[in-house]
């Protein structure tokens, strides 16, 4: 399996979008491209499993390496392990759903879809790159379209939100860049290659400096407290597909980077700062949840709950146990799917009621059963109902966190567990006010979901249920990869 396909396919789609004439063609081309990506991702999953089943135990599969800029030892080095496959699958699901949900964009359709596909290109590239330089390259590709998506097609305080988001993310990338260069110049081989760097022993002093730089840098993307403030404004102003991509994919770029670059390259640094990460993420989990409780705008509710849920990811990473780390990766996938679904549904509701304020809605179950049912399922997934993906990932994180015996970790775990109650409170408040209760006047003639919206929701639901009902395929995928990372850490312990 040639991994460059993952980059070429979006590229070809993007170019094709630029070439075709009218909006209808643009949409169909985008949908065809997204579906092709989707199929490719599924094929990749099976190819990967087959290769593993054949006994290939090397850390990365399907590796490819081309010289790119030999003078500085930069090479186009790509390859995947289980974690990357999981993230690629997530991206593929969200992209298809995002393309379908945006079917009604009439303003600058071509540019909109072009940017969406470009964003997916950046995400795929990021998830498969094994060279810090091209990793950074794709990270930046994934940032710029977001600025335009929010600034042009957004709503509300869109200029402010777009600026804030782009500046904070750029600030994050700047930290990443500095940390990356630090690693490059401190390593004796002067290499950006992740595989090479992970075999070297990076001096402890360097790790002490570079780890926080890289972790915080990626943490800004992943909504690490207190660098999460772009999340609420960014999400609430973005167009539906923009929010979906932002929460479903972009935030995962950050947490993936934290794991792939910061923790797996610098285990000593990770040990050094683990407690700080745990404190920050525990705060984020509870504080995000409590802040959500007070929100009245559906998009803000989901954005703040994302802060809380992403806190769980960082908690899982910070615990530095294999179970918790697996849980963190599962949470990335699960949260990506769930939150994308949530935003998709919010977009559908907004399009019909023209409001995002929960207290202006009520009884929508009567007029749009499909949409509200999906909203309900997304909510249940968010509050960790068994059978949906949220449950397995959260429980894995909790069990993994509990493996530590000291009081500090115990308290952090209990605090994290408490979030499941608060989550239930805000999710039920939101759903109770929007979907249930007497139907508000003026909403009697609203239409239920159209085919494209139904399809988008179903695609994401399939992902959520597939993980929720049969989590073992995902853990089997992720476990070998986290095991390798943990080996490095346990050697130091």
């Amino acid at each position: 399996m040639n991994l460059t396909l993952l980059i070429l396919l979006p590229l070809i789609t993007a170019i094709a979008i630029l070439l075709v004439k009218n909006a209808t063609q643009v949409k169909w081309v985008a949908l065809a491209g997204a579906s092709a990506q989707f199929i490719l991702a599924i094929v990749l999953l099976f190819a990967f499993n087959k290769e593993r089943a054949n006994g290939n135990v090397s850390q990365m599969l399907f590796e490819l390496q081309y010289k790119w800029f030999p003078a500085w030892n930069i090479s186009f080095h790509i390859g995947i392990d289980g974690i990357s496959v999981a993230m690629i699958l997530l991206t593929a699901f969200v992209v298809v759903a995002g393309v379908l949900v945006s079917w009604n964009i009439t303003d600058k359709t071509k540019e909109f879809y072009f940017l969406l596909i470009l964003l997916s290109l950046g995400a795929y590239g990021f998830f498969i790159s094994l060279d810090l330089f091209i990793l950074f390259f794709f990270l930046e590709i994934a940032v710029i379209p977001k600025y335009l998506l929010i600034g042009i097609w957004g709503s509300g305080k869109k200029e402010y939100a777009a600026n804030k988001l782009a500046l904070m993310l750029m600030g994050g990338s700047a930290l990443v860049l500095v940390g990356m260069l630090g690693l490059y110049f401190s390593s004796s081989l002067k290499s950006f290659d992740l595989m090479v760097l992970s075999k070297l022993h990076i001096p402890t002093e360097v790790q002490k400096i570079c780890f926080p730089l890289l972790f915080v840098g990626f943490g800004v993307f992943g909504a690490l407290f207190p660098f999460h403030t772009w999340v609420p404004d960014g999400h609430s102003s973005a167009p539906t597909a923009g929010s979906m991509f932002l929460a479903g994919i972009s935030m995962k770029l950050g947490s993936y980077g934290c794991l792939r670059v910061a923790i797996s390259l610098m285990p000593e640094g990770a040990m050094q700062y683990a407690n700080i990460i745990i404190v920050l993420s525990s705060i984020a989990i509870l504080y995000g949840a409590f802040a959500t409780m007070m929100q009245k705008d559906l998009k803000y509710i989901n954005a703040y709950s994302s802060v809380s849920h992403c806190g769980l990811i960082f908690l899982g990473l910070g615990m530095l146990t294999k179970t918790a780390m697996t849980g963190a990766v599962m949470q990335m996938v699960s949260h990506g799917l769930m939150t994308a679904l949530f935003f998709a549904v919010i977009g559908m509701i907004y399009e019909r009621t023209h409001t995002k304020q929960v207290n202006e809605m009520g009884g929508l179950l009567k007029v749009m059963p499909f949409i509200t049912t999906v909203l309900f399922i997304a909510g249940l997934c968010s509050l960790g109902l068994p059978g949906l993906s949220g449950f397995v990932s959260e429980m894995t994180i909790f069990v993994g966190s509990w493996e530590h015996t000291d009081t500090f970790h115990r308290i952090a775990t209990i605090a994290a567990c408490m979030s499941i109650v608060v989550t239930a409170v805000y999710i039920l408040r939101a759903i109770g006010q929007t979907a249930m209760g007497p139907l508000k006047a003026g909403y009697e003639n609203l239409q239920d979901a159209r085919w494209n919206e139904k399809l988008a929701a179903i695609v994401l639901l399939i992902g959520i249920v597939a993980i929720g009902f049969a989590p073992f395929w995902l853990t089997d995928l992720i476990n070998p990869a986290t095991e390798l990372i943990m080996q490095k850490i346990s050697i130091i312990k």
Partner: protein
Amino acid sequence: MPHVISIALIPLLPLVGFILLGLFGRKYFNKSAGFIGTFLLLVSTALALYTAYQYFFDIGKVNGIYQKLVPFKFTWLEFSKGVSIDMGIMLDPISVMMLVVVTIVSLMVHIYSLAYMKGEARFATYYAFLGLFTFSMLGLVISSNIFQMYIFWELVGVSSFLLIGYYYDKPSAVAACKKAFIVTRFADLGFLIGILVLSFYAHTLDFNTLIERLTSPASNEFKAAVGASFIGITALTWGLVLVFIGGAGKSAMLPLHIWLPDAMEGPTPVSALIHAATMVVAGVFLVARLFPVFSMSAPALYVVTFVGVTSALFAAIIACTQTDIKRVLAYSTMSQIGFMMFALGISGLGGENGLGYTASMFHLFTHAMFKALLFLGAGAVIHYIHSNEMKDMGGLRKYLPITHISFLIACLAISGVPPFAGFFSKEEILLAAYHHNPAVYWIALLTSGLTAFYMFRLYFSIFWGKQAHLHGEHHGEGGFAMMLPLLLLAVGAVLAGFIPFGHFVSSDGAALESHFHWQFSVAPVLIGLLGIFVAMWLYKKENDKPAKMAASLNGIYQTIYHKFYFDELYIFITKKILFNLIGRPAAWFDKNVVDGVMNLTGNTTQLISEKIKGYQSGKVQQYALYFLLGIIGIAALFIYVWK
């Protein structure tokens, strides 16, 4: 070994019903949904009865002791070596008994709803939810893994939420379903942490292994669990108490009971199924499932006893003043579950000491019959009169003869009048209490007197007393579909007591002979009859005695009528503390401080650029001057500093 597929089908058939009706019900089966659901459950029930027969009379017993069989399990989610969620089936006396109870009550409710819910717009959805609930409850009882139980525990919670909120356009129903879910969720947090604690020490999540490791004093796991302590209490006790909190939440024990009365907002058959007979006993079942471990920790059992006995008394007192018939039944459920709880709490493990355990399970079994009957009867009354309030009822015995008789049987059963089912099980509980803890015995005796009183208050207010004003059209008793379950359950309420329960269910699996002491029974039966006569005196004929009594007890009466102000307390905690003291400051902090810092960074940058932009003046000569000065400066540096 039993046939795995036939057992697995017991929970899976209702799930099939849920998926089928949930996805396609509204479009294709809105009329036939009831029959599809009922048929699937009928098959389930038959399979459950077959399994019970097979287990109790064929394969279950080895050397006179009922075994815990795990005919099937597979690893669903592996956390780490040895610690994994397995999906499996575990057959032991209590799970098999629960299979029977759940399927039978559920089947009755399915049949009953055919008539009761007829003509509802979301008829198919209703049956889908019933299927989901039945699936989750059956999955819960056959769990072989504590985390599997937690999974179904949560599913049970959500299906209860869906069914309470079935009339979703009624704000009170919405509030009730939210309350039920959140309160039980809060309790589940305890359960979850309890699981984490126990599994951490036992290094397993599997019930059998966990019980085995935590009950043998010689094992390393047990030593570790007893050795570790937090604020002077051992980890084992902590784990068990936390697990019990989960059970107390589902079983509506004090102080987590507040959701149960409100849960009556759901359709009445649902109340019969979930909030009377099956789901609310999940907490009792959980304690019974882990009973061997509980018996290793006296403090944990003490907590169970204390909570059980206070809930029983407390709920019985409140039930005496409520006027909504479903609420009376709800509090009576809570009181009876309190009986089951403390019966477990005072029980020991094995032999005669284990009488409390057997009694508790026995009471669970008989209670399911007569409580379901009471609720379905109440449903028939409500169906007829279109009101839940006692003041709208009276003299209905002429109009609803079958309902009347079956309701009377259920009332006699719950009051502990021989030879009805409740008599035998309650007797055993009292006997066990008498032997182990006299204080508990006296409170329980008082409570059973109160039980008889409020049940007959209910009975006389509905079927006797003043004549209700009947207006509009009335359509008889609701037909065969509603009467059949009443009759069947009435038969159950009469006969269930004669089952030699101790032979099948006991704390150690060996048969337990139940000794019947008629001398002992005199006191409970007398106090029960006393309660009945007081109720008759007060409520059989319309009079002003009750009102006078209420007036003379004004302060106390009001306190009880307002359920000891528990709801107000909870509202205070959630509204004032959670929302105003935590939520609002958190939101404010985020908007102003965290966001403020980010904006401040932006603003500072802007401010600086505002200040220095003057240097870009557009005047060429000024630039040249800076340029010159720069060169001079650099030259100076090279000459004097860097040489």
